[in-house]
């Protein structure tokens, strides 16, 4: 994998918060490099710093010290607006609670990131949104409103929204946390599919079971990496899905 392009390089990343009079060290020097085509799970209990790390990787926050290069560009010196443009062009977010716009159709939800990119015209925007929804097997639900869809379908729309701007990296934050086991596996299958197509994915979760489905697993504890292992033979989510007892109720 090392011959592939570097997507993310962080070096001795630190992040401190001041809460009241106390200084809370959320990240105490984290370093790793992620190459194109990796499917990385970042794991840790709550308070381990994984959310802080995700915010930094997603250009939502800036580190107190340390270096962050996203797709070869240094992020920590960027202004708020520059980081917004960075998120718009290079990152796709998938959240635990989907965060779709209410009363809005699937295709309009997926178009949203492109609305903030003036280089994309209305026609191209629609075409790319439809293509992204096809990629998540929702071409039959283009004009369904977000509140008319199941949780799994909503998460698929959210994934399509993360794909539509052709990001260099997809950041998923507990993307299966709100779903039942069957749907979780089907979403995981989708992530594996995207991985197989060459997408780079970072999946942040507290659920240790998910590690075996990714190609690399980073474990955080108290703001430090305690393990970083490559998984040469990830388990197939499809097989796990098929083994699940069918819903016969």
């Amino acid at each position: 994998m090392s011959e592939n392009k570097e997507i993310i390089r962080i070096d001795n990343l630190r992040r401190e918060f001041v809460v009241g009079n106390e200084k809370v060290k959320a990240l105490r020097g984290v370093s790793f490099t992620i190459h194109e085509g990796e499917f990385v799970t970042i794991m840790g209990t709550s308070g381990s710093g994984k959310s802080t790390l995700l915010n930094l990787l997603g250009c939502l926050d800036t580190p107190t010290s340390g270096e962050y290069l996203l797709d070869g560009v240094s992020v920590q010196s960027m202004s708020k607006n520059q980081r917004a443009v960075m998120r718009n062009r290079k990152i796709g977010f998938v959240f635990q609670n989907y965060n779709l716009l209410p009363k809005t159709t699937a295709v309009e939800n997926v178009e949203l990131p492109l609305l903030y990119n003036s280089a994309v015209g209305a026609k191209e925007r629609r075409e790319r949104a439809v293509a992204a929804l096809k990629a998540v097997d929702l071409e039959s639900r283009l004009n369904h409103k977000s509140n008319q869809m199941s949780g799994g379908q909503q998460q698929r729309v959210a994934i399509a929204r993360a794909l539509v701007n052709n990001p260099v990296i997809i950041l998923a934050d507990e993307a299966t946390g709100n779903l039942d086991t069957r749907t979780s596996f089907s979403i995981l299958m989708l992530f594996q599919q995207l991985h197989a197509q060459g997408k780079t994915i970072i999946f942040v979760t507290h659920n240790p079971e998910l590690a075996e489905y990714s190609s690399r697993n980073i474990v955080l504890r108290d703001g430090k990496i305690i393990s970083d292992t490559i998984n040469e033979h990830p388990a197939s989510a499809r097989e796990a899905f098929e083994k699940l007892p069918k819903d016969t109720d």
Partner: protein
Amino acid sequence: MNIANLLKIALKALSNNKLRCFLTMLGIIIGVASVITMLAIGQGSKNSIKKQISEMGSNMIMIHPGNMQRGGVRQSADDMQTIKVADYEAIRHIPGVAAVSPSVNSGGQLVNGNNNYPSTIYGVTPEYLDIRKFKVKDGAMFTDNDIKSAAKVCVLGKTVVDNLFPGGDDPVGRVIRFGKIPMTVVGVLESKGTNSMGQDQDDVVIAPYTTVMKRILAIDYIQGIFASAVDESHTDETIDRITNLLRAQHKLKEEDDNDFEIRSQQELSEMMNSTSDMMTVLLACIAGISLLVGGIGIMNIMYVSVTERTREIGLRMSIGARGVDILSQFLIEAVIISVSGGVIGILLGVMATWLVNLIAHWPVYIQVYSVVLSFAVCTITGVFFGWYPAKKAAGLDPIEAIRYE
């Protein structure tokens, strides 16, 4: 981020909350509609007062005897005899005086055959018609020769004609009696209707002043003088000149008070204008306050909307919306509410004005400036009251906003 996309986003957000959006708009609609209607009513009544005053003769100057004390006893104006024909003759030669006429009048019974009618006979000169804006409809006005000879001729107002000639006969050339004095009708005045005080302006008989002075009243003074300035703007100047002239004529000393009163229609018109101006300001204030309340309604709803949509704002930021994009989105939403409320308000205001005119028969007049003004004010209201909530939205931290419950 281009304007078309921003508009699309704002419209979409508004259409998700149609009822709330309409109710917010209602505040602006009522504000704008009431501003337009109130100003139209205010301006309408002002215009109608102006018209009535100018019908009475807008640059008319009235001179009456007045302020005379005899041994400490103040005299009634009717008893005073301070104004003479010589004063009238002198005023005629003042520059700036367009027309002048002495005035002597007497009440009495008019008789034509079996019909009689009580009225007032005014002794004047032909110039009186110009001053009071009367017009002769049938026949002709009496002439200066009639004045010289104190001829027994008269011109009748419509009310008098209707009462003396109920059969519809042509009164011109007929002889009627005023008391015991026979007079030949030479003309009939065009009807003017009632004035703003409710007086019937057609209940008049006009005759040469010499006739009234010598043949009816047997007096050597006149009761008053009517004059008119060349135009309204010269009225004050002309009044000053007449005052100086009359003081000289009457040989008054520096310290003496005037022994006459001089008034113009302008004073009356100014008084009435200031009353209706005050009414207009008052109405506009009430309407302005309702517009302000509407604006606060927008602000309130936008604040609620920002709080309610915190997660949406967080999401938009995390997928690449900059602060300025969020700010513009909420600002545009506020402006869309206020501007469309303004447009509906203008339409409703025009309709309400029309209804007021139709049902209550109040005079109305919609000024273009009131429409432009209220539209501008409600646009500014939208920007002003939308700014703070929009600023708040743009200043949210995306990390906290996206996890807001």
